[in-house]
């Protein structure tokens, strides 16, 4: 089925387009920060809409951990066709989601090649998770890190006000 790769190609083109746009306008310094926040913003809005659709039929969540489990299983399966491999928490609002074969990074490399380009391609997904959580009532900050492709870790820190 060709459906899955459609989004992957679109995503690659999106990242390329945003960076090209930025390069033709501003200075080199501001580049990375604004591009990353643009991509993250896109992911945020999409995450909000997606979560509305996915949780339409499921009962309310008991607590934060329940929400994170939903993100790791149902949400990740629907978006990236697999579950999160490892969820760790310190029970004080910080969660680390580890995906050993992240769908958007599999085409890059199997090791450390192209490592410095990886963060651009993770910004959208960070926004996706942040949007999904925000619509469920949890304000948080999501960051991603990659040390060995295609595995990556998303760190979710819940803001308690």
């Amino acid at each position: 089925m060709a459906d899955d790769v459609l989004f992957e190609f679109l995503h690659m083109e999106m990242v390329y387009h945003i960076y090209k746009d930025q390069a033709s306008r501003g200075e080199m310094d501001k580049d990375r920060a604004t591009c990353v926040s643009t991509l993250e913003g896109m992911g945020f809005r999409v995450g909000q809409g997606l979560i509305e659709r996915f949780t339409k039929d499921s009962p309310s969540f008991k607590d934060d951990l329940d929400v994170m489990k939903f993100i790791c299983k149902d949400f990740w399966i629907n978006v990236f066709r697999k579950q999160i491999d490892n969820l760790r928490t310190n029970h004080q609002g910080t969660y680390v989601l580890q995906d050993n074969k992240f769908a958007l990074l599999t085409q890059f490399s199997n090791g450390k090649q192209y490592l410095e380009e990886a963060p651009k391609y993770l910004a959208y997904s960070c926004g996706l998770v942040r949007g999904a959580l925000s619509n469920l009532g949890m304000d948080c900050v999501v960051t991603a890190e990659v040390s060995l492709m295609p595995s990556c870790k998303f760190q979710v820190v819940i803001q308690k006000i």
Partner: protein
Amino acid sequence: MLTRLKTQVPLFSMNSYTKLGEKLKLSGLSLASTHSHVIRLGRHNSKMAVCIAVIAKENYPLFIRSVPVQNELKFHYTVHTSLDVVEEKISAVGKAMADQRELYLGLLYPTEDYKVYGYVTNSKVKFVIVVDSSNTSLRDNEIRSMFRKLHNSFTDVMCNPFYNPGDTIQSKAFDSIVSAMMVQAS
């Protein structure tokens, strides 16, 4: 006025109708219920709300529509007071961990004229439907299906790229779904 004919004694004399009318009178049914245009109204009336509101997570209205338009303030107030009951139900369910937590909240509170039903989504957006108390034929299942339709329509609004979450709902499609569920303005 016409909406009450089904339950009240007809205003015209029975004798001016045919034997069918007499048979119905004997069996206890009101003749008015066989009068064609009253039947039509009667059928519509049983599935209609008087006011529908969508409230955001931060408790301000995203969408509120009511019929008749003259009493709008009263409906706004009714919906506002029902929010307290919604909050109470949400927090009450939280303590009863064993329960399967449902999105449909059921009858929030009945006033002398109206009954108010509530529903909350996973994104903490609340739907409130106000129906006329004289609609005894409106069953729980029908209210649930109305909420289901509302939720589906709201999800579509949410996925619309021209809609910013937190704005009032301007979508015509949503509007038409809501209007279809409300009492026709007489």
